[in-house]
């Protein structure tokens, strides 16, 4: 049985017990799993002293563009493979998981049956395309799994990854493209039998540490960064493990204005060239941005008067009695975005290039770009259409805390249908965001700035203006649709009382 293959770069997040998550994904669409790219997310409110959502990790902007962060057909760096529920036939969108034949920790062979699902009239055995060890099972019997969602994760060995070729195409598609391996960088540590993330493996490599010698203190004996550094410290490879923790992060992820690796006498101590191998998120970004660049984008720019929004936020803050809740602009922007999406569902869709079909996503899972110590991630708020502004506020806060702690779950990062990105304090008028495939639109919002405006009779008044730039897939969306959608969204922001008109 054919299994579609999807690989993502393991990020510095802890594996926990079985988690369920939704990943709208067709067998051919690129991986919506986000990988943090470089950039910064900064959103300051006009007239407010404190930055509400201010993460001072600036974008690396090339030609004034900035990147959307979702990885597409990621290359494995750690050998963990996502095994999705592959397309099993025309019109089959989901299956019921009936039973597992394996459990976490089991060693499995290529073509070994791993579970049985039911779709409509058929029970179907799903077999593994890989030899490896079951790392994580994501569903339990009785669950409904959408086609494309990850069923389980397998730790694979290096050799398989580099020689993977699909044998059985699906009946309705031409099959997944071959994913070219980039395995020259894989070392013994990458393919060792211990559980660890790619970041930890890289760190071990940097310090010349063999992971097999390190005792893991994480769950199931997982080797954590601290374990590697402790070992290296004891071996005498490094002076101070805690310092290395920070510098290691910086080396791995070219982020931070302060750490920008521009050739400078101060940073390098010389004027020689320095080779920086791209690893982890950076490496993933190369691939994902290359894929995104192939999509014909167009950009629509508009300005939105946020006077009413500013007033609304103040009103929320003034009547807020919950110390755990802090009101910002984003939740209202997100909710009004969802209201506009209800009228223009094409903006909230995924494009399947091979089948030439557009999947209008039922849920509004709005991704919000956030900076973490490891770079930019885009967790998403699920089902915004069914959430109140207060619920969105709380969920946003939850995701932000997890992001800062680098503890986002795959569930939080997967399944986004549209991305919202704050550009904030970098500078410039606006960027041209690249799509977060397989989404068809991305919205970049700038800082709200107080600017002079003219009335009809020529008087000047101050207004809080926010610039938005909507990047769109021109294979699916045309200018008129995006313009009308933006107009609709703008109306809800400029006249938030209209939200009440649609309140159920």
């Amino acid at each position, binding site marked *: 049985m054919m299994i579609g293959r999807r690989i993502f770069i393991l990020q510095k997040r802890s594996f926990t017990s079985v988690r369920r998550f939704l990943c709208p994904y067709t067998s051919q669409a690129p991986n919506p799993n986000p990988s943090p790219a470089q950039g910064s997310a900064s959103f300051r409110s006009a007239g407010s002293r404190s930055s509400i959502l201010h993460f001072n990790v600036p974008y690396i902007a090339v030609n004034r563009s900035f990147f959307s962060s979702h990885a597409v057909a990621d290359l494995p760096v750690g050998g963990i493979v996502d095994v999705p529920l592959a397309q099993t036939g025309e019109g*089959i969108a989901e299956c019921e998981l009936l039973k597992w034949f394996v459990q976490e920790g089991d060693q499995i062979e290529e073509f070994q049956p791993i579970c049985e699902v039911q779709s409509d009239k*058929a029970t179907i*055995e799903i077999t593994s395309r890989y030899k490896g060890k079951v790392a994580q099972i994501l569903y339990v019997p009785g669950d409904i799994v959408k086609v494309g969602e990850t069923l389980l994760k397998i730790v694979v060995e290096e050799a398989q990854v580099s020689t993977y070729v699909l044998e059985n195409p*699906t009946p309705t598609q031409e099959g997944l493209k071959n994913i070219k391996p980039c395995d020259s960088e894989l070392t013994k540590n990458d393919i060792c039998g211990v559980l660890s993330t790619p970041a930890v493996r890289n760190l071990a490599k940097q310090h010349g540490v063999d992971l097999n010698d390190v005792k893991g203190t994480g769950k199931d004996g997982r080797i954590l960064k601290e374990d590697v550094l402790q070992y290296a410290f004891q071996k005498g490879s490094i002076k101070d493990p805690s310092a290395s923790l920070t510098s290691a992060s910086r080396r791995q992820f070219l982020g931070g204005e302060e750490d920008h690796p521009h050739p400078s006498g101060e940073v390098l101590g010389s004027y020689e060239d320095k080779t920086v191998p791209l690893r982890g998120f950076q490496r993933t970004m190369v691939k994902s941005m290359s894929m995104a660049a192939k999509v014909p984008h167009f950009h629509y720019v508009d300005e939105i008067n946020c006077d009413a929004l500013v007033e609304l936020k103040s009103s929320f803050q003034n009547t807020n009695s919950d110390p755990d809740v802090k009101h910002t602009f984003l939740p209202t922007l997100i909710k009004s975005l969802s209201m506009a999406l209800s009228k223009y569902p094409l903006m909230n869709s995924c494009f399947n290039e091979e089948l030439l079909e557009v999947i209008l996503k039922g849920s509004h899972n709005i991704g919000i770009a956030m900076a973490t110590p490891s770079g930019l991630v885009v967790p998403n708020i699920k089902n915004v259409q069914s959430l109140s502004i207060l619920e969105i506020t709380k969920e946003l806060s939850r995701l932000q805390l997890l992001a800062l702690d680098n503890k986002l779950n795959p569930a939080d990062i997967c399944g986004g249908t549209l991305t919202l990105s704050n550009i904030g304090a970098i500078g410039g008028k606006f960027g041209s965001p690249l799509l977060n495939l397989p989404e068809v639109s991305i919205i970049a919002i700038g800082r709200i700035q107080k600017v002079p405006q003219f009335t009809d009779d020529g008087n000047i008044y101050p207004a809080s203006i926010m610039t938005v730039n909507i990047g769109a897939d021109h294979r699916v969306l045309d200018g008129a649709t995006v313009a009308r959608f933006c107009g609709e969204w703008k109306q809800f922001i400029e006249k938030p009382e209209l939200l009440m008109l649609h309140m159920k």
Partner: protein
Amino acid sequence: MANPGKIGVPMMNLVRLKGVPILQQLHLEERLLRTSSHNWCIINDGTNQPTIVMGVSGKPAELLEIESVLCDQIPVMRRFTGGGTVLVDPGTIFVTFICNKDAVAGIQPYPQPIMSWSGALYNKVFQGIGDFHLRENDYVFGDRKFGGNAQSITKNRWIHHTSFLWDYEVRNMDYLKLPARVPEYRLARGHLEFICRMKDYLSRSEFINRTIEAAKTHFSLRSTDLEAIETTANTKFCPSTRLLTMQELEIAAKFASQSNVSLYQ
């Protein structure tokens, strides 16, 4: 693995049964699917007693009028293939194909291709007899269903089995609830407006003979009997098709009645 019989045409063992209990038939099918490497066609001309057969994940509370089922002591079982619920009896004719995944040239081992292949095969069977179609996943004359299908697809093999309503008893329909998921073409029709009897079109023997002839266009058929299969049976194999116990049905009945109550609170 294809077993070439005639040049280029795979071998298939044909087993003709009559009045065999459906549980025994399903156990046999599951065993052949999972432990045999041959292709099989099993035809059971009627089962011995009325029995309710649910699909692999069927829930009695949702699918059955359990009180009536318990009262009339109708056996209920859950089979190993997917699909819906049927009430089978001596008026039901069963036809099953169990094949290696490459047995039929050009069809891929997925639900839809197998379903289409079976539709084409039965098209031959009913040529000139009625307005036969494969409609969504059902066999129909016009827009009335007379044959229901279910499948199971394993690593190297698949089974496609059908229960044909050659005849049925109207009162038996009362044991089944209207399912939550119905094919679109059903529209809002009640059970009796939705199904039809094959006996209005052709006799049992004619149907079975025509089916065997149609199968011969794909396979080289070789007759086998049940005893021959059972003597070489893999005794370690444990089928998953099973009868539900009285206790399970009673618990389901309680659950069903509680659900009804909560709707009106």
